[in-house]
């Protein structure tokens, strides 16, 4: 048997993949003709080409894959003629191939409206990698770009122009609004507003009458006689099925294009099939990839059944749901089910937030039981869940708005979640993988996301179903009674939270004891610092005693931050960033004496770099003598409480933010936690101390203090969230006590408060309940534990300086005390020193 496929786009590739899986090896000869010079690539993610992906990255499979599966691939060689009576095809390069079955998957081309001047230089279409390469060559000389077409593809093309560096990009839409076929009027309005904010100029109700210019375009003229200057135009006004070869071969085509097919995707010649965007089924052209893949499945099954001795269940193509979710220039846009359900048979629930640019509308049956369809703009996280709820006619919760907004208060659940879906619910609509497929794969032992992707192909195309697939993996494992344990490392089969409780109950005071009771082996660089941190958070003992010095992270072990070259930096505590001139002088004298590089830190302190290990106790002796304390810059501990100058000097200040910052810094100094902690106090809403970027931040109000929690800067900045407002100072500190202790008790190792909150079930609402409403009944205990830590605080550098045994450990050579590491090298820079560059 010989199968010839004309075209090598996404659907053609999918057909190849499916047919070789369905027929025994070597029973069919498969030949593919493609017009483009490269094998099928991912056209859905074409715009990523400009965002840095190479043409190779976009390939669905390399030429080697075709060869390995015995598929003959002719690239850059379109078929020009089909001889139906002799059942042969003839290619542009003169190849003649006979076929038993012929599959036409020629796809579509860009529809170019007959506007005068579209042949000028500077006018492009947006369809293939070659089109993109032409645009890329031309873009550097273009200042203003225009896209004709405000639909899906047009907005994709506009994104491409932005990615090419043309910030002045305009979109022209003939209709009165954007994406009229997919979303409703309000949705269009919000989308337009969002895109405008991102710098796109949108012109609706514009009928382009001419592309102006001589050889090279200079602008567009519209039917209303207005004119827009531009030096680059991309036409993306729709698609035109590639049916010319079919027409030439006498196959029936539609009036407006498309090869007419039946429910088996057979053309008027039953041995010739048409799939993808060139096929016209029941008057519809399907311009999305998922229906194309479904067509490939139907035809592959149909052909395989005719040669197989044990035919599979017959499949037919009965139309396809056009639900879709996209990210257009950073804005989520989704529509699913029947987004335009008529008012006679349905009710709608609308949520609109014009400030955040979010619009959601769902249509439900009049009895409120079923979801019919909907539109999501600006936030489409719920898309997959809603789509499945609609498709599977899942009974809606008593307050149907919960599926849109989540349960608010009360104990009711917002719908049954992905686990409540029936087994045949399609989770991955690109690859049509059902919930049952995924769950049985998990039961068969594929217990990681990667393993599921590999064995089911779910989540390998658009990736939209990723969260649902992950939920199904954990859900199925839990249902099997498998407890997904979050263990520390090979030496401790417990999570941090479990160890915290065990160490507290057993009053464990050293790493060795912890290892004896709960561990195995010798420990490692993962478990040692975690246990050390837990013990420090629980007992606040001197961290270098009881043999615990060597289980501290390197910086904690030497109470300083190791820097390039092996020297250390020293940060004295400067509470609230307030320092007297006399103390400044001491820092300057110490820095001069020990030849240290000085720099102001982001946390309103002074960092002294380049100290030899052997000098650290001497440096601290002098600093402590002058009244300084350790700043704990080396620890996963409270670092600094930054402040603005507040009401003592500032004409806007409402309260004395410096005094409150000092009070807070002195209360929590030395507090060790799963990760470093930063704080700030601002004296008014101008927020000069940047409190909303801290683990806990305080802002003065007319009536007291607002307390924000769980913010951080760093690589993934996150704003802190308001926990409580208008607090008096005492209540504010009580809430901070509870918040910090609860975080210390429950967070995973090296998890900042922001990440901890993101993972906390119930999020900020739950945290508010624990801290403010004492929902767990532990508030008194948390406050008591914090008070114990506060009471036990001692400056650990003071303890070292006063203890000769501890001091001895700050020596580079054990057998040559006082000899500094001779390999340390410095260079000079702007009148100070810097570490020599490492290799």
């Amino acid at each position: 048997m010989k199968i010839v496929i004309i075209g090598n786009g996404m659907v053609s590739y999918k057909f190849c993949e499916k047919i070789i899986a369905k027929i025994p090896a070597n029973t069919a000869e498969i030949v593919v003709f493609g017009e483009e010079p490269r094998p099928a690539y991912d056209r859905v993610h074409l715009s990523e080409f400009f965002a840095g992906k190479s043409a190779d990255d976009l390939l669905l499979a390399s030429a080697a894959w075709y060869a390995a599966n015995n598929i003959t691939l002719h690239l850059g060689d379109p078929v020009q003629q089909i001889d139906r009576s002799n059942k042969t095809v003839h290619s542009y390069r003169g190849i003649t191939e006979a076929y038993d079955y012929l599959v036409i998957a020629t796809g579509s081309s860009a529809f170019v409206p007959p506007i005068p001047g579209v042949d000028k230089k500077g006018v492009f279409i947006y369809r293939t990698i070659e089109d993109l390469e032409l645009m890329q060559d031309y873009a550097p000389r273009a200042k203003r770009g225009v896209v004709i077409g405000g639909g899906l593809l047009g907005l994709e093309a506009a994104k491409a122009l932005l990615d090419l560096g043309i910030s002045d990009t305009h979109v022209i839409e003939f209709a009165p609004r954007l994406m009229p076929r997919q979303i409703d009027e309000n949705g269009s309005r919000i989308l337009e507003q969002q895109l405008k904010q991102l710098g796109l100029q949108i012109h609706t109700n514009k009928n382009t009458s001419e592309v102006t210019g001589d050889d090279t375009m200079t602008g567009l003229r519209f039917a209303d006689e207005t004119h827009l200057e531009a030096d680059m135009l991309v036409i993306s006004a729709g698609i035109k099925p590639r049916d010319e070869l079919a027409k030439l071969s006498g196959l029936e085509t539609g009036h407006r294009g498309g090869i007419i097919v039946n429910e088996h995707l057979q053309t008027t010649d039953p041995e010739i099939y048409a799939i993808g965007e060139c096929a016209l089924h029941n008057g519809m052209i399907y311009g999305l990839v998922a229906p194309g893949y479904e067509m490939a499945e139907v035809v592959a099954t149909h052909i395989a059944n005719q040669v197989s001795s044990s035919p599979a269940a017959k499949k037919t193509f009965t139309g396809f749901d056009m639900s879709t979710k996209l990210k257009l220039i950073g804005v989520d846009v989704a529509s699913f089910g029947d987004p335009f359900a008529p008012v006679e048979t349905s009710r709608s629930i609308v949520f609109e937030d014009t400030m955040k640019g979010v619009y959601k509308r769902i249509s439900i049956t009049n009895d409120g039981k079923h979801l019919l369809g909907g539109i999501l703009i600006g936030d489409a996280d719920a898309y997959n869940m809603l789509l499945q709820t609609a498709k599977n006619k899942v009974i809606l919760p008593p307050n149907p708005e919960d599926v849109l907004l989540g349960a608010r208060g009360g104990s009711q659940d917002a719908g049954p979640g992905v686990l409540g879906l029936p087994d045949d619910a399609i989770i991955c609509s690109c690859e049509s993988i059902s919930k049952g497929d995924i769950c049985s794969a998990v039961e068969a032992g594929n217990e990681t996301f990667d393993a599921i992707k590999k064995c089911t192909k779910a989540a390998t195309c658009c990736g939209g179903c990723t969260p649902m697939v992950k939920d199904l993996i954990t859900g199925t494992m839990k249902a099997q009674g498998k407890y997904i344990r979050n263990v520390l490392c090979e030496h401790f089969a417990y999570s941090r939270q479990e160890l915290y409780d065990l160490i507290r109950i057993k009053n464990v005071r050293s790493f060795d004891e912890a290892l004896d009771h709960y561990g195995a082996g010798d420990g490692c660089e993962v478990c040692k610092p975690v246990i050390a941190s837990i013990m420090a958070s629980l007992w606040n003992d001197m961290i270098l005693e009881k043999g615990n010095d060597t289980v501290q992270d390197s910086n904690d072990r030497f109470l300083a931050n190791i820097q390039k070259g092996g020297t250390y930096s020293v940060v004295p505590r400067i509470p609230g960033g307030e320092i007297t001139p006399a103390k400044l002088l001491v820092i300057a004298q110490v820095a001069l004496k020990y030849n240290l590089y000085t720099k102001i830190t982001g946390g309103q302190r002074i960092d002294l770099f380049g100290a030899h290990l052997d000098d650290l106790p001497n440096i601290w002796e002098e600093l402590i003598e002058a009244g300084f304390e350790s700043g704990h810059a080396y620890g996963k501990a409270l670092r600094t409480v930054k402040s603005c100058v507040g009401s003592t000097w500032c004409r806007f200040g409402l309260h004395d933010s410096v005094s409150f910052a000092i009070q807070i810094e002195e209360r929590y100094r030395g507090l060790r936690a799963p990760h470093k902690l930063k704080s700030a106090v601002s004296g008014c809403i101008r927020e000069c101390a940047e409190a909303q970027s801290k683990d806990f931040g305080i802002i003065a109000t007319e009536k007291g203090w607002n307390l924000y929690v769980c913010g951080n800067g760093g690589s993934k900045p996150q704003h802190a969230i308001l926990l409580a407002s208008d607090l008096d100072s005492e209540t504010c500190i009580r809430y901070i006590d509870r918040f910090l202790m609860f975080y210390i008790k429950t967070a995973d190792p090296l998890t900042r408060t922001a990440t901890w909150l993101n993972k906390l079930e119930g999020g900020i609402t739950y945290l508010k309940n624990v801290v403010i409403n004492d929902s767990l009944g532990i508030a008194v205990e948390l406050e008591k534990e914090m008070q114990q830590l506060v009471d036990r605080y001692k400056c650990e550098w003071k303890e070292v300086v006063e203890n000769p045994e501890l001091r001895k450990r700050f020596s580079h050579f054990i057998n040559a005390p006082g000899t500094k590491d001779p390999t340390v090298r410095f260079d000079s820079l702007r009148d100070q020193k810097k570490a020599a560059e490492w290799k």
Partner: protein
Amino acid sequence: MSIAISQDTTTVWFYACNVNDVPQNGGVCVKYDEVQIALFRFARREAWYATQNLCPHRQQMALSRGMTGTHNGEPKIACPFHKKTFSLEDGRCISDDTECSLTTYPVKVEGDKVYIGIAQEA
């Protein structure tokens, strides 16, 4: 292929320090002329190891300040700079196949004195 060291070289043992100079489960740096050697003690098993003090990754004299541990029972040291881990048995880098290996030295304990062995040409 084997390297026939024992025939052409002899091991010279030099006194490094006393047992109690070394933290129970950690390391110290020992000076041997211009050479810096990291000496490690696993007090739970009274096992001793010695390697070069230089971490080959960024050429830092830091391994003696690193954290000791085991990986599937094999003793290892993690550099304080970037947590590259090296086997204390054969010196190979455990966390990165492409990293250079460490030179290792034999250690012996007599009474409360710790000696490190240096191979010298016969």
